[in-house]
């Protein structure tokens, strides 16, 4: 049975059939017909204040719910504003469909007003993209786009929608997906599973190394079962955080550049690495030639191109993490505790993540610990930099859909819009964006979106008056020449900024105020920005310097009062000017 409708209506009907109930976007000239159809549709539309926000919201929504996130932007600048958000989703394998307006088909290629070749621009940062040239292709393309976005290794798909295509009339049909060039390999090869299981059984010092693939396959249950069955310690990447509960005795926390010492030591000592849905990124492996030198490597990944891309793999297993883990569970027999377990546990005791608390100055790590204490079940999103690493290190993560961070692309400005998207997808959860004073400003305009749509997300700005991670590198590797990283004087008053948008602003300048600020924020059913004036000299520790092996992980000096002095002097003046704060 078919029905006549406009292209725009066919788009909305296709979205509905794909189970979309919310889209994030901003209209524009060529999108008028589409927005007219949105006006008459029951799909919820969240109006953003910058298209980058729409892309990150769709991304945060997708990560928090496991569903495909949808964002919409107009042609030209609207579409190019999505680019960072699409690249971000691509690097972290987030299922997303981005819809962009395009000029009328007969104007394409003529440098028309607000024309940009967005399919060309997004070619390297989408799993696939489409330029629709006829209304009759709408339903097929939307079906394919959603199918591609959510299956196999998920990723963003862009659909470019010329204005005339949305106006033309079309018979609505709902075709089957038939793509001869796209057959994602889901089922792992039985022989390879058997080989992997045998290697696991024979290993004396196994480590399970888990990435975002486990989260997307919803395989964390199977992961916990496997790890406990064979008593193998588990470390996660930033993307894999939450896939294995960090309060579990077998958890080694995060590995890599700012991972735990014990995770990195375990990798270097291991005789078998079971990598699941992780891609041996340079931030994880350190110097690649000496990564896990004694280990056989088993690599499970749904994307065949990841296997053997960065490291040699002894036993490749191409398949979905859930399927592969279920196969492994059948093949392995229980293993008791071993000397290896004792060793990793001893490392955990000996080298815990730590910092030096202070009664006068707020330590950023302390803020994270308090957030975790007061809101242990909250969804945490992060910006990028020191705030992100502290949120990864000092919050005890237990749920894969509750830690949302820009891993691959490292996009400052991601966390706040992602928090809004996550809160819309999971309104029953508290959602907190752990931010820095640098990154929060990159998309703070979305405060308007949060306020207007009554989305009560919380932002915890760890305000250290600088672009902290870069500053940390300057301190360590560029003889403290703080080139373009000191913001102190120039950042706005975040409390007033929040209030200007109609949100709530709170500030803590002393450790004793941290808890009450968090409690007040969590009890407020409105968007809240918490401005924590933290020690500017604090560094993320431990650290594997770039190009070093994981075993060479260093404790950076933990800041006590004396060490903080140098930077404090630099910042103090700026803070006094702007915030009226006296020293620390």
């Amino acid at each position: 049975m078919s029905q006549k409708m406009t292209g725009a209506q066919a788009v909305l009907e296709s979205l509905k059939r794909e189970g979309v109930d919310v889209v994030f976007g901003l209209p524009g000239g060529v999108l008028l017909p589409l927005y007219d159809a949105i006006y008459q549709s029951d799909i919820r539309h969240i109006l953003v204040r910058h298209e980058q926000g729409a892309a990150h919201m769709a991304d945060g929504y997708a990560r928090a719910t496991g569903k495909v996130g949808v964002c919409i932007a107009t042609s030209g600048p609207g579409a190019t504003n999505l680019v960072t958000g699409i690249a971000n989703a691509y690097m972290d394998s987030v299922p997303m469909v981005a819809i962009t307006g395009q000029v009328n088909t007969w104007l394409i290629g003529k440098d028309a007003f607000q024309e940009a070749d967005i399919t060309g621009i997004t070619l390297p940062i989408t799993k696939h993209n489409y330029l629709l040239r006829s209304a009759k292709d709408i339903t097929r393309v939307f079906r394919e786009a959603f199918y591609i976005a959510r299956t196999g290794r998920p990723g963003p798909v862009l659909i470019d929608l010329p204005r005339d295509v949305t106006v033309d009339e079309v018979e609505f049909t709902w075709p089957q997906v038939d793509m001869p060039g796209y057959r994602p390999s889901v089922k792992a090869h039985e022989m390879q599973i058997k080989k992997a299981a045998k290697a696991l059984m024979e290993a004396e010092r196994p480590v399970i190394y888990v990435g975002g693939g486990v989260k997307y396959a919803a395989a964390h249950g199977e992961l916990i079962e496997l790890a406990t069955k064979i008593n193998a310690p588990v470390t996660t990447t930033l993307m894999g955080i939450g896939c294995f509960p960090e309060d579990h005795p077998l958890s080694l926390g995060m590995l890599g550049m700012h991972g735990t010492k014990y995770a990195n030591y375990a990798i270097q000592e291991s005789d078998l690495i079971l990598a699941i849905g992780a891609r041996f990124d340079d931030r994880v492996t350190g110097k690649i030639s000496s990564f896990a030198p004694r280990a056989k490597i088993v690599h499970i990944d749904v994307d065949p191109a990841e296997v053997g891309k960065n490291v040699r793999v002894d036993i490749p297993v191409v398949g979905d993490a859930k399927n592969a883990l279920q196969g492994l569970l059948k093949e392995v027999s229980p293993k008791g505790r071993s000397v290896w377990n004792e060793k990793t546990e001893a490392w955990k005791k000996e080298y815990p993540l730590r910092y030096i608390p202070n009664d006068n100055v707020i330590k950023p790590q302390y803020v994270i610990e308090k957030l975790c204490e007061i809101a242990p079940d909250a969804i945490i999103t992060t910006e990028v930099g020191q705030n992100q690493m502290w949120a990864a290190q000092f919050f005890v993560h237990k749920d894969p859909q509750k830690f949302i961070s820009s891993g691959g692309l490292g996009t400052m400005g991601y966390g706040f819009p992602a928090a809004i998207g996550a809160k819309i997808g999971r309104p029953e959860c508290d959602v907190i964006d752990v931010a820095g004073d640098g990154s929060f400003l990159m998309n703070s305009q979305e405060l308007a979106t949060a306020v207007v749509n009554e989305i009560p997300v919380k932002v915890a700005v760890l305000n250290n008056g600088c672009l902290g991670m870069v500053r940390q590198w300057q301190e360590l590797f560029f003889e403290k020449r703080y080139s373009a990283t000191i913001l102190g004087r120039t950042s706005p008053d975040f409390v007033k900024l929040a209030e200007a948008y109609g949100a709530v602003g709170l500030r803590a300048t002393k450790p004793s105020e941290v808890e009450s600020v968090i409690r007040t924020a969590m009890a407020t059913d409105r968007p809240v920005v918490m401005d924590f004036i933290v020690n500017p000299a604090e560094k993320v520790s431990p650290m594997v310097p770039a190009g070093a092996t994981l075993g060479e992980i260093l404790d950076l000096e933990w800041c006590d009062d004396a060490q903080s002095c140098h930077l404090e002097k630099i910042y103090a003046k700026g803070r006094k000017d702007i915030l009226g704060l006296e020293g620390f």
Partner: protein
Amino acid sequence: MKHTIAVIVENKAGVLTRIAGLFSRRSFNIDSLSVGATENPDYSRMTITVHGDRDVLEQVIKQLSKLINVIRVSELDPSESIERELAIIKVNADKESRSEIMQIVNIFRAKIIDVSHRSMIIEVTGDEEKIDAIVQLLRQFGIKEIARTGKVSMVRGARVVKA
């Protein structure tokens, strides 16, 4: 080390860009690429020559296979396949040199497809080495212009690379 791969792709706008873009952004080295229609109008066939070690070749094949418009990727073992290239060469030719050039053309089983008072155009097919060799021999007369296709290749015997 050089490798030849046959890639069956959907015959759609932008597919060549997707493939060329993939090679440049992943820093794969491409020596030659040729595209043409196949027995099925929905598909085109590309023959791509790349150089790199086995690991690079494996990545090239896997990354190409990930493209939605790519239907099939197959490595062609040079010892089991036939490779051909076509070149047309415009060479200086006057009364004195014409007969000598024609002898070379005969030896290479090439063809003369255009003649004027001062030049000739020669068409030659063969593998890369053969074409390099005739080009080398014709240099003495002064080559004015060369147009070469990329390589096309096919497995010997009954085996086929198809969608």
